[in-house]
């Protein structure tokens, strides 16, 4: 199953609800385009909801890191929401768990963005 993205706004934060697989040739380009699109529209507070991500490979992990650095370099913030156990474990193994700001509750995540 390819990856799908739905975008919504909550209190000045753009939430990208992602579902499916983030792998080379499937979701990785989709994330890149979605984040670029949000930044292009002038929003730089982005919350990636990974609750419905069923699978992620090293290319997908790399794409999350690239999105994080792209948003950060533009002066914004990117946080992750609702990690599945598989994604959580991969971020632990790759020592990225402490790099990202990871939340498991949407309201908490929204309030954690700089006002």
């Amino acid at each position, binding site marked *: 199953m390819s990856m799908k993205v739905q975008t919504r706004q909550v209190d000045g934060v753009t939430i990208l609800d992602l579902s499916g697989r983030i*792998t*080379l*040739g499937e979701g990785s380009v989709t994330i890149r385009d979605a984040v670029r699109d949000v930044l292009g529209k002038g929003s730089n507070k982005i919350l990636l909801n990974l609750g419905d991500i069923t699978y992620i*490979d*090293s*290319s997908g*992990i*790399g*794409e999350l*890191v*690239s999105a*994080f*650095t792209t948003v950060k370099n533009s002066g914004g913030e990117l946080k992750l929401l609702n990690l599945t156990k*598989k994604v959580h474990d*991969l971020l632990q*193994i*790759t*020592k*990225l768990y402490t*790099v990202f700001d990871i939340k498991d509750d949407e309201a908490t995540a929204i309030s954690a963005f700089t006002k």
Partner: protein
Amino acid sequence: MADSNSSRVSFTLDSSLDSVNKIELTAEQIAQRAGFDEDTIPHIAMAVREAAVNAVLHGNSYDTSKHIVASFETTSDSLIIRIADQGPGLDPDKVPDPLAPENILRGSGRGIFLIKAFMDEVNFRQLHPGTELTLIKHRTPAQPGT
């Protein structure tokens, strides 16, 4: 001496993402038949996927004239997967450590690290041209033989 419990299957495939997906799915099915548990099967499948991506992307560079060969061997004590490409060759000692502070924010370079994290043994062999990765996962005593 031949192992009466062993079985082996081999595929020669195009340098494409479809091949990567096929190899990943095959790894998942064979690991399941070999009796690996539900936590280990996705790890094996992911390691094999990463090896196949390396072969297609970094080895053969999507070159349609080059192929990858994937073989799956189940023995009484292990699952052995070999993925070979026809690329310029890979020196594993030159692969940067993705956990190093200077690399942690890189957008790529975690594939071989994950392969090593999820498999019990990983070996590289230079084919001149090409590289063959051998991935081995040992069965635990709780797993039934095939």
